[in-house]
């Protein structure tokens, strides 16, 4: 992938941002320019790194655990009809609850530390993974399944050797969504109650009118989310090389 276009877009955005700040003359405690933000980031490098590490750990743990739970739930759903009848409505209802409203409860139950943020991220992540993977497993080409049936293949072998590989592209879509929403869970958790992390830093910077630091934390958070998304995308593309060419050319 060429870096030219993203670079042009980024530079263009930064320039127009700086331009707006200069032309409108808004005070820096309302909207600091990119230069001010960069300077604040440079001055608080250690602070940012420390809090980014906390948030990064929460996000990665949440993504790993959430994806694992999500994938397992999909496998349970697809291999057992009673599980589908009992579990699927529960899962849907669990998503009807606004997860953000649960954040204070999670902090109350699991404390101010890492655990409540990971739980929050897991709650947000597992559902898109479950849904995408389950959908992929259900849509496995019928001809393949019938062929396997005539070959008198045991169901577990069909699941492992045909249905799971066939639905890896669908799982990939779920994981990409999960990677994109994982930081939301962690940061919301930090807003509600925490002693560290980028969300915590942003809240405090905001309260102390250090809007430049708030923006710097935001930039770091976006960079982390982007690299996570890129990593997941790369891994899933590697796994799904066999996908129809149309998918590759449409990227």
């Amino acid at each position, binding site marked *: 992938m060429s870096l030219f276009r993203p670079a042009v877009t980024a530079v263009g955005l930064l320039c127009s941002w700086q331009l707006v700040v200069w032309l409108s003359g808004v005070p820096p405690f309302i909207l600091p320019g990119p230069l001010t933000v960069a300077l604040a980031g440079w001055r608080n490098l250690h602070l940012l790194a420390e809090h980014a590490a906390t948030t990064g750990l929460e996000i990665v743990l949440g993504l790993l655990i959430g994806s694992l739970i999500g994938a397992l739930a999909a496998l349970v759903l697809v291999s057992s009809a009673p599980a589908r009848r009992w579990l699927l409505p529960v899962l849907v209802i669990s998503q009807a609850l606004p997860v953000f409203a649960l954040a204070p409860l999670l902090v109350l139950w699991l404390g101010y530390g890492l655990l409540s943020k990971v739980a929050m991220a897991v709650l947000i992540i597992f559902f898109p993974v479950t849904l995408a993977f389950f959908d992929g497993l259900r849509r496995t*080409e019928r*001809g*393949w399944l*019938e*062929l*396997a*049936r*005539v*070959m*008198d*293949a*045991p169901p577990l*072998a*069909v699941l492992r*050797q*045909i249905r799971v*590989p*066939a639905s890896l592209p669908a799982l990939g879509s779920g994981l990409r969504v999960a990677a994109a929403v994982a930081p939301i869970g962690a940061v919301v958790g930090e807003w509600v109650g925490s002693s560290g992390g980028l969300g915590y830093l942003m809240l405090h910077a905001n309260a102390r009118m250090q809007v430049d630091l708030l923006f710097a934390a935001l930039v770091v958070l976006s960079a982390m989310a982007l690299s996570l998304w890129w990593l997941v995308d790369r891994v899933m593309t590697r796994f799904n090389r*066999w*996908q129809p060419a149309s998918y590759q050319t449409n990227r």
Partner: protein
Amino acid sequence: MQISQAPPVVRSPEEPPRLLGPEVEVEVPHLVYGGRPVFQDLRLRLPAGKWTCLLGPSGVGKTSLLRLIAGLEAGAVVRPDPGRLVGKIALMAQQDLLLPWLNVRDNVLLGHRLRGRSRDAMKVLAAEADALLARVGLAGKGDASPLVFSGGMRQRVALARTLIEHRPVVLMDEPFSALDAVTRHRLQDLAAELLADRTVLLVTHHPLEAIRLGHRIWVMAGNPAKLRGPIEPSGPTPRDPADPGAIRLQSDLMKELLASAELVETQ
């Protein structure tokens, strides 16, 4: 494209002896699809070790009958009973159904992989798969991905996958219909040779294909569907399409098909 004429593989002693297919009989007392009776007291006997061809217009129920025998659909009485047919049937469909994430050799070995064989058994089978691939004109292509193959090459892999199952009963649902005339001709020859002595049901809508390969040809028509025939061409298969007998049979068969089509249209 090369499909070898002479067998390049010497039959090794461990290769199983030629499989003799059993007689299979299917009886459908009454079957309704979407409120419309498809079969009513239909009975088809596949003679042991012979090729039975089933011709007829699209949508008449040829594929349904094949699927009933394969046990993929319920509603028929199959003799020998399905319990005794488990592990005896191989299926070759119109689509090649190759798994895109496996290489060609592993696709050929799919049945054995799914059933889980010991490592030593798989080694022997992998060698056999390579020999079969050479037999269908894909020598040395075992490690290739089927994604880069043409439709004809893919269907040849599917044929090798059907053969390595060593099943005495082989059900084929228009396996060569998506192929060009030359590839189809060559694959028909190959299938006739490698599936001799098996009990084969070949669903097709090419009269010529039925005449080249069939020992017994039925035409399916009507609603509910009835079987007309059979036509029993003589002589060994695959037959020469230029043979006067084959040409006469083809015109007979075409008449039969036209008559059955009119039967449907007047209903």
